[in-house]
């Protein structure tokens, strides 16, 4: 320290900080206020993926983070660059994904003057970041970056934004990177209270009809092995939320699939008849609980979560345990006693036989069949989705056996998330086959990223389940608005195969069931960015379904209208 060789610009210091944090890739888009940063990136070993819209940079960082477990990084310029990140940041916030977003800002003296490309991005992102910073002195920069990565990735993870005025990036500092972070006001609780854990164990031993309701928290905390061990040792069936898919092996006999609005009947029935619910890394979201007053009416509830604010937020619970899912499940597994749940499991197996997920098979091309075929062709892929019907089918008909293999915008429900997130996932996990399962509506929200995958040669496979509708909205219009399809028909908006080809990607169209598998095989074998346009049954519904406001056992089978 004090060595004049360590003198460098703020921009250089930023890159140095990223390097020290182990960042190998950033997703971004240049602009005036980040010119000095991009100049440093030019000669840096950190890979920069140039997207075609800043929203995609945030989603790609998110996809990278969810797939790898590392913190994703995105960069945008001031003003519109920064505001374009907003949807991506909000998406990451709702699903607790660790990303660090770096935005350029107008020079410090101009802040507040409505300067060219000025936006108060720390103000705008206040409610959608775990924390954010406006750097006011270049000397604070290393500490702030260190804190940002620490805050983003610990406790309940989430996005952190750093707003960097242009003059800060050109000011010089004596570089020094702090070894550790000292934040007196931020100390997440990892170890659960042992008395509470014992209480939970007591309830487990008394219970004859327990269910584990596991969510994205299991994946955040890398607790899948602990969950499996706990569930097997205690013989307790497991249902997962949308963001919890892959937290428990999809082909396990104790697995009930997803619960909630489009969950399996047997998962929902099990919740409603359970005498004990062990909720881990979940937040009792309305898409899960349906009418909250009648959710798990007979069950005592144990709630394990690292965020104390989630405890009793939506539903009063009996035994709260604040702590890291991994730590708590490990501790819980140690203290549980044998209990006999065989009758309960038999009952659930009976439901599984009676009420399986199903769809009508005929000569037409069914979206569910495509998902099954993707699973058959590649059962260890990373599946990324957009939002809508295809997302639910991807959750229902693919079996996720490993964590970090199903990436989806669960909380915010962001159409357009899937493709850029798939880019991030593929960049982070290059040896994995990555599918973006998309709808024709969602895909068009960020289809310009075809340019990114082609120019960087990122071979993701886009599987569009093309039904010519904004399908989920159309489904609701069919069911609740007398089939008045207001602004949901988007038939023939574009020739997706030609679109793919125009960007230099491989395009394949499939409209017959027998062509599905060969197309998928071809896409995988091509090792090129590939788009498959599956022309599917246009008014297929996602089934079963819990109508909004109903209890989750009031779950209906929907058949396609002829």
């Amino acid at each position, binding site marked *: 320290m004090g060595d004049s060789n360590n003198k460098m610009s703020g921009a250089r210091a930023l890159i140095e900080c990223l390097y020290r944090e182990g960042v190998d890739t950033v997703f971004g888009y240049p602009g005036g206020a980040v010119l000095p940063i991009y100049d440093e990136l030019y000669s840096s070993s950190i890979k920069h993926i140039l997207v075609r819209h800043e929203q995609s940079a945030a989603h790609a960082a998110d996809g990278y983070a969810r797939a790898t477990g590392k913190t994703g990084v995105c960069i945008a310029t001031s003003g519109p660059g920064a505001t374009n990140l907003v949807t991506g940041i909000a998406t990451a916030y709702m699903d607790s994904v660790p990303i660090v977003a770096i935005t350029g800002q107008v020079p410090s003296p101009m802040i507040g003057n409505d300067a060219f490309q000025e936006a108060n991005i*720390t*103000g705008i992102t*206040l*409610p959608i970041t*775990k*924390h954010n910073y*406006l750097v006011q002195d270049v000397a604070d920069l290393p500490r702030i970056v260190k804190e940002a990565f620490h*805050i983003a990735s610990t406790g309940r993870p989430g996005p952190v934004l750093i707003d960097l005025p242009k003059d800060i990036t050109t000011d010089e500092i004596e570089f020094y990177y702090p070894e550790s972070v000292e*934040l*007196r*006001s*931020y100390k997440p609780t990892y170890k659960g209270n042992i008395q509470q854990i014992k209480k939970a164990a007591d309830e487990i031993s008394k219970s004859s009809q327990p269910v584990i309701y596991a969510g994205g928290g299991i994946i955040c905390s890398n607790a899948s092995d602990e969950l499996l061990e706990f569930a097997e040792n205690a013989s307790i069936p497991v249902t997962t939320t949308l963001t919890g898919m892959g937290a428990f092996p999809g082909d396990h006999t104790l697995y009930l699939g997803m619960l909630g609005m489009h969950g399996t009947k047997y998962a929902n029935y099990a919740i409603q008849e359970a005498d004990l619910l062990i909720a881990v890394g979940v937040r009792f979201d309305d898409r899960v609980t349906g009418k909250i007053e009648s959710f798990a009416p007979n069950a005592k509830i144990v709630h394990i979560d690292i*965020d*104390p*604010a989630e*405890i*009793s*937020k939506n539903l*009063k619970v009996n035994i709260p345990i604040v702590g890291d899912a991994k730590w708590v499940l490990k501790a819980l597994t140690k203290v549980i006693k044998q209990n006999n749940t065989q009758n309960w499991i038999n009952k659930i197996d009976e439901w599984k036989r009676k009420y399986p997920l199903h769809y009508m098979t005929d000569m037409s091309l069914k979206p569910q069949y495509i998902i099954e075929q993707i699973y058959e062709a590649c059962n260890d892929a990373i599946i990324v989705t957009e939002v809508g019907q295809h997302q639910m089918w991807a959750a229902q008909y693919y079996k996720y056996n490993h964590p970090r293999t199903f990436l989806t915008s669960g909380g915010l429900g962001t159409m357009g998330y899937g493709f850029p997130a798939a880019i991030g996932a593929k960049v982070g996990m290059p040896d994995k086959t990555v599918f973006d399962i998309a709808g024709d509506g969602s895909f068009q929200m960020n289809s310009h990223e075809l340019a990114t995958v082609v120019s960087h040669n990122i071979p993701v496979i886009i599987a569009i389940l093309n039904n010519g509708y904004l399908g989920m909205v159309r489904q609701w219009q069919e069911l609740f608005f007398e089939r008045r399809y207001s602004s949901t028909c988007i038939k023939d908006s574009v020739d997706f195969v030609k679109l793919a080809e125009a960007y230099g990607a491989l395009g394949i169209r499939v409209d017959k069931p027998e062509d599905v598998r060969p197309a998928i095989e071809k896409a995988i074998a091509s090792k090129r960015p590939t788009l498959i346009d599956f022309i599917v049954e246009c008014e297929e519904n996602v089934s079963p379904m819990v109508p909004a406001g109903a209890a989750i056992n009031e779950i209906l089978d929907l058949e396609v209208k002829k």
Partner: protein
Amino acid sequence: MKHTLAVLVENKHGVLTRVAGLFSRRGYNIDSLAVGVTEDPSISRMTIVVRGDDQVLEQVVKQLNKLIDVIRVTDIESGESVGRELTLIKVAADVNNRSEIIQIVDIFRARIVDVSAKSLIIEVTGDEDKIKAIEKLLKPFGIKELARTGKIALTRGSKKV
């Protein structure tokens, strides 16, 4: 039900916005909010009077604690604390009623801090009930302007929040 929260926060720019923003976006009602630096210049103390049942209060406290810049949140119970606020009241007064007003001011151990031909400014310190009471008595004379600091509070005895 009203609760008085003592919230210790980092004395940095933007922290007030974070706290106020939290209340508005989660739909919590603030009755009053007073902020000032503490004996430690790196820490500010916010005293927030909030209305809500126990469940709302629990959420308010937890959500406040989630903010990175919030160091500690304490629900100060009225029985075990001293709560005060300061109010300035500009009341219409002339030769005819000035002495009557001064009597009221004396009874409340308030002070007159400004006098003009047509008005007086009264400074009164106390709990909410006391301020309400003097306000009620002064009302007939004509209150022209009133400013309140909002409540601040400390727990009794040597215990700190």
